[in-house]
């Protein structure tokens, strides 16, 4: 055996690939569970130039798997600490850590083109889609990955060679109609979403007019009277907000601001809603809560009679001895999770159910803590599952609301999981996934594309891994079928019209121009053509999409980049790409004739011959959905596969449904 430190790697990778690695430039997006593992291994494998990017800081709950971090590193930047820890290991490696969000404009297509390969170790759909698009635009290979508990997946992606991340639509998180959240909750999750996305931001978020959401709800045909009431409700938050921000009224004498907030949302607002008797004809009305009565143990409320069940009158007081009789049923239910395989929750501290009085005390104390933070200089506070103050607030507020609506309460532990979209995560799955990512990366670098595989880690003792041959791009994909091009320009001095005619090379054809979901011009509306890109808020890092109105030519996506630093100030403020993009001609099958191009992308191909025994083609739920063929990946009239507004709302966990009549299924918010 050789005495050299890389002897193993050299023998196995072969001299050609091995010598290439020190020159290879890798972008690693994410320094979390997979990111830590991945960084360690690409350093050990011999990659020479690693850019590591993460916007997060280290939390105690990361330490069960993110092994480059120690207790002393908690609250530090993940990217910085991971780079420090890993760099010490290989003196020849250059690690460039960046503490930032990958979606920031400085990380434009040019920047992505500076890498030989991109490895994703992300935890959210939005960022994954963003990186996918940038890699498609830049033509850089990407290895995508993810884990959830014992399950995991690795997917290699390269423009024109494989499917891209968006070729198959991803399931969107479960959403709720706004009125269910705001006035007629029937499940604990509704109350949690209300506390987290509505109440917390009303009290501690930006002082913004939330009427937009209500306007939309009204347009979608939700109950007008109800909306009017909700509008009034929003106005009254102003008083509470100012109390929270004034030092004398909040913390000093037992929390006047907390009391005020309580009276408003759990008493006055509920009374208001009750006054609309129409709403409560076919559903159980809520009970307004009384602050003082709960505190001195005299509060009682009637459990709403269920169909065929006798209503039970029971007193709920702070001491909790009434729990033993009256609300025993509720207590028992709280301890039986609807999911039979849920962890046995006995014995852990925050897995205990709080009494009504405990919840109220927690509500008051968390509001006081949050108010103190505002007064100490924090502008706004938003929900973070690892921020105990916000988690306590959401736990208490959602439980109080549940009591008012006769819904079962949840423990802090359960609230954290439901509100934080927490996915179980362990070191072992991350380690397996990372091994597979590096292998796919090596196949990319060796250009042995045939060896690339889409791999799933599954819970089957007989088939721990299932690997699937890659599918070609989906011909209908709204992301990777675009023709990408780069335009360096100064958005302050370049007009929309100049860009479009420049890119089209003077060819006259009917086009519509979009930035994300916004229409900037179409054949019958060219008002914006004389305006500068900057005035239209089209800046570096964004894409202009040029869609052929006749549907005969493919879509062009123009990625905006900065002008080179030495660009003479007196020359044109924009450098057109050379050659100009030439989108492919779209073959439109005549409608009645049988489809000419086989739509094989919508189905998984038969596995590679020699994989028969071990390959399992077992489409997961989202694939099944897609193979129904009824999902429009890209309707002809919209340039992007996902409306941006919807995406933004999804981030908040609160989303308007397409139609007000849609009813959410039982259960919790789905996670990516």
């Amino acid at each position, binding site marked *: 055996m050789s*005495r*050299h430190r890389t*002897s*193993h790697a050299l*023998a*196995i990778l072969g001299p050609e690939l091995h010598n290439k690695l020190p020159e290879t430039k890798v972008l690693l997006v994410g320094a979390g569970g997979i990111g830590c593992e991945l960084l*360690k*291994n690409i350093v*050990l494998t011999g990659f020479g130039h690693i850019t590591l990017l993460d916007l997060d800081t280290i939390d105690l*709950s990361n330490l*069960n798997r993110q092994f480059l971090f120690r207790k002393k590193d908690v609250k530090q930047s993940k990217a910085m600490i991971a780079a420090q820890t890993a760099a010490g*290991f*290989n003196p020849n490696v250059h690690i460039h850590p960046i503490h930032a969000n990958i979606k920031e404009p400085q990380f434009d297509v040019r920047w992505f083109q500076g890498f030989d390969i991109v490895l994703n170790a992300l935890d959210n759909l939005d960022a994954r889609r963003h990186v996918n698009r940038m890699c498609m635009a830049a033509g850089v290979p990407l290895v995508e990955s993810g884990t959830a*508990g*014992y399950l995991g997946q690795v997917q290699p992606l390269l423009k024109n060679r494989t499917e891209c991340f968006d070729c198959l639509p991803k399931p969107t998180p479960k959403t709720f109609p706004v009125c269910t959240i705001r006035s007629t909750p029937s*499940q604990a999750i509704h109350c949690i979403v209300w506390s987290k996305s509505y109440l917390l931001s009303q009290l501690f978020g930006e002082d913004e007019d939330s009427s937009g959401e209500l306007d939309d709800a009204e347009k979608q045909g939700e109950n007008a009277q109800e909306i009017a009431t909700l509008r009034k409700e929003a106005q009254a938050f102003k008083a509470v907000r100012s109390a929270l921000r004034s030092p004398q009224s909040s913390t000093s004498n037992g929390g006047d601001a907390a009391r005020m907030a309580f009276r408003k949302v759990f008493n006055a607002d509920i009374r208001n809603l009750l006054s609309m008797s129409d709403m409560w004809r*076919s559903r*159980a009305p809520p009970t307004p809560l009384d602050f003082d009565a709960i505190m001195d143990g005299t509060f009682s409320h009637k459990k709403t*009679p269920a*169909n*065929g069940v006798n209503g039970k009158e029971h007193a709920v007081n702070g001491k*909790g001895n009434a*729990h*033993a009789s009256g609300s025993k*049923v509720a207590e*028992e*239910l709280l301890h039986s999770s*609807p999911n039979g395989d849920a*962890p046995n929750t006995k*014995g*852990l*501290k*925050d897995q*205990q*159910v709080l009494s009504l009085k*405990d919840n109220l005390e*927690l509500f008051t104390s968390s509001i006081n803590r949050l108010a103190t933070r505002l007064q100490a200089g924090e502008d706004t506070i938003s929900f973070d599952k690892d921020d105990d103050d916000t988690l*306590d607030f959401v736990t208490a507020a959602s439980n109080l609301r549940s009591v008012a609506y006769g819904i*079962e309460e949840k423990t802090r532990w359960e609230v954290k999981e439901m509100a934080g979209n927490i996915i179980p*995560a*362990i*070191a*072992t*799955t991350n*380690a*397996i996934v*990372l*091994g*597979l990512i*590096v*292998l796919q990366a090596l196949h990319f670098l060796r250009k042995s594309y045939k*060896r690339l595989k889409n791999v799933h880690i599954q819970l089957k*003792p*007989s*088939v*721990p891994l299932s*690997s699937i041959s890659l599918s070609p791009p989906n011909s209908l994909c709204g992301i990777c079928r675009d023709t990408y091009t780069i335009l360096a320009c100064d958005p302050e001095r370049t007009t929309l019209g100049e860009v479009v005619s420049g890119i089209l090379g003077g060819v006259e054809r009917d086009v519509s121009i979009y930035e994300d979901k916004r229409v900037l011009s179409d054949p019958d509306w060219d008002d914006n053509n004389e305006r500068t890109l900057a005035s239209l808020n089209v800046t570096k890092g964004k894409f202009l999409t040029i869609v052929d109105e006749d549907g005969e030519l493919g879509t062009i996506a123009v990625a905006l980049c900065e002008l080179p630093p030495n660009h003479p100030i007196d020359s044109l403020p924009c450098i057109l790409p050379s050659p100009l993009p030439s989108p492919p001609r779209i073959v439109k099958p005549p409608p009645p004739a049988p489809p000419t191009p086989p739509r094989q992308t919508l189905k998984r191909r038969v596995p590679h011959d020699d994989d028969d*025994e*071990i390959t399992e083609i077992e489409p997961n739920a989202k694939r099944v959905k897609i193979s129904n063929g009824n999902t429009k990946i890209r309707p002809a009239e919209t340039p992007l596969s996902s409306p941006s507004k919807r995406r933004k709302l999804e981030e908040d966990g609160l989303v308007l449904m397409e139609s007000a009549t849609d009813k959410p299924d*039982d259960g919790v918010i789905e996670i990516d």
Partner: protein
Amino acid sequence: MKESQDIETATTALSPTNATGPPDNKTRRYDRQLRLWAASGQNALESSRVLVINGTATSTSTLKNLVLPGIGHFTILDPSKVTPADAGNNFFLNGPNSIGKSRAEEEVRLLLELNDGVEGMADTRSLDEVLDTDPEWIAGFTVVIAHNLDSKLLDRLATFLWSDDSHPCLFVIRSSGFLAEFYIQYHEHAIIESHSETAPSLRIDKAFPGLLEYAKSLDFKSMDPTEHSHIPYVVILVKALEDWKAGHGGLPPQTYPEKQEFKKSIVSMKIKPDEENFDEAESQAYKCWTSTTVPSEVAELFQDTRLTEITPKTPHFFVLLAALKEFTQQEPYTLPLSSTLPDMKSNTENYVHLQKLYKTRAEEEKGVIKKLVVEPVDDDLVDSFVKNAHGLKLLKGKPWGTLNGDKEALANSAGALPKQVSAHLALSALATFHSDYPRATPTVDALTTEATKILPERPEGWDDAVGEVVRAPFADLPNTAAFLGGLIAQEVIKMITKQYVPINGYCVADLVDSWTGVI
């Protein structure tokens, strides 16, 4: 942390600071994994002792994934010194600074940095020496992991561990470049919490009295439309089945036309076309004529001879199994009712009421079982056993080397899984060749000769497998090591926590083509 407090104590005996304070640091650190294996799994991990023989990169990668989630103790048994090659592929060495130092000591020191709740020891004796002088020392561990061990020494270790069924289980790992395999040697492995994906029966066909009474008490026709569209499908089916039986001599639908007729009768109960609860009832109608019995896998366990005579020495699993067997021999000849209901179309009130009915009945049946348990068993264990009765598993293991000693079985496997068996043979041949000729460089011819001793014919794919092994014998790539470390630690955790079902057999992995298979 008190494990066995009842609900009332848990909810009423708290001081406010205790109830509302943040969770302790340990709970926060382990938050994401507690959601997978709960406090019971964590307790098992924390009381486990893991012995690792040979401090290779694969060994430390495995240990890393066990130290992070918090095993109780580990020992690395390794007499060797760190070489430059070790320093280049093992993350848990301090690079060139570690060269020449004890491999075990360097690794233990660095692994311990990951989690201060874990105890770690370095032992610089050789395995030979331990087996000669102090084999019982090995018996004090929960799990033994051996990577790329000399094949004769491995046989000795495996034989010793197999000699008594109270000895720890053994993980045998062999890897070379991008090829690897591992095998778990154990006598028997009983799993209560298998986290089975099949849901327990709702017993719609054998509705318990409380449920039957409730269903009968409802008058669907007099309900208002909102109420009507929120009757849970379980109740709809119980009522529909009862009505059907009344007109069919007490029998459920039997023939295909009868079943279709039954489904139609459910659809015709709709008062609006969009009542999803009735659609659910129609799609679940088969539950009315599929008789709920004891699942065959569980019934098989009842054949175990240990159930005939329960003594204070009988393991708790079998004490409980005996009680369960007796329970299933009485009306209604099923497993005890599960208290958990799946999600269904319903309003909160109806769902909660139905859940209460199931919960009450489940408690009653659990009470019956408790009376049938003849030896003292911890209440929590009984609860867990009853709750998971439909997923109970009892795996039987075989001693290391059984497969290679059984030419017929191996030949059969080679027919069905040629690639996997080729990889297994290549790794086996490399191990025996190296054991016989430690200084010789293995060649394709030499390994082919070795493989022929195990199996006369060479399966398809042999050339690729032997080529990979000869390319860099025993090479411990960081990447393969990380992958294996994940896969193996996962199985170690399953064995220690006795939750989830571990891989049974030789698990072979080829990382060139990204596949795994189990022989």
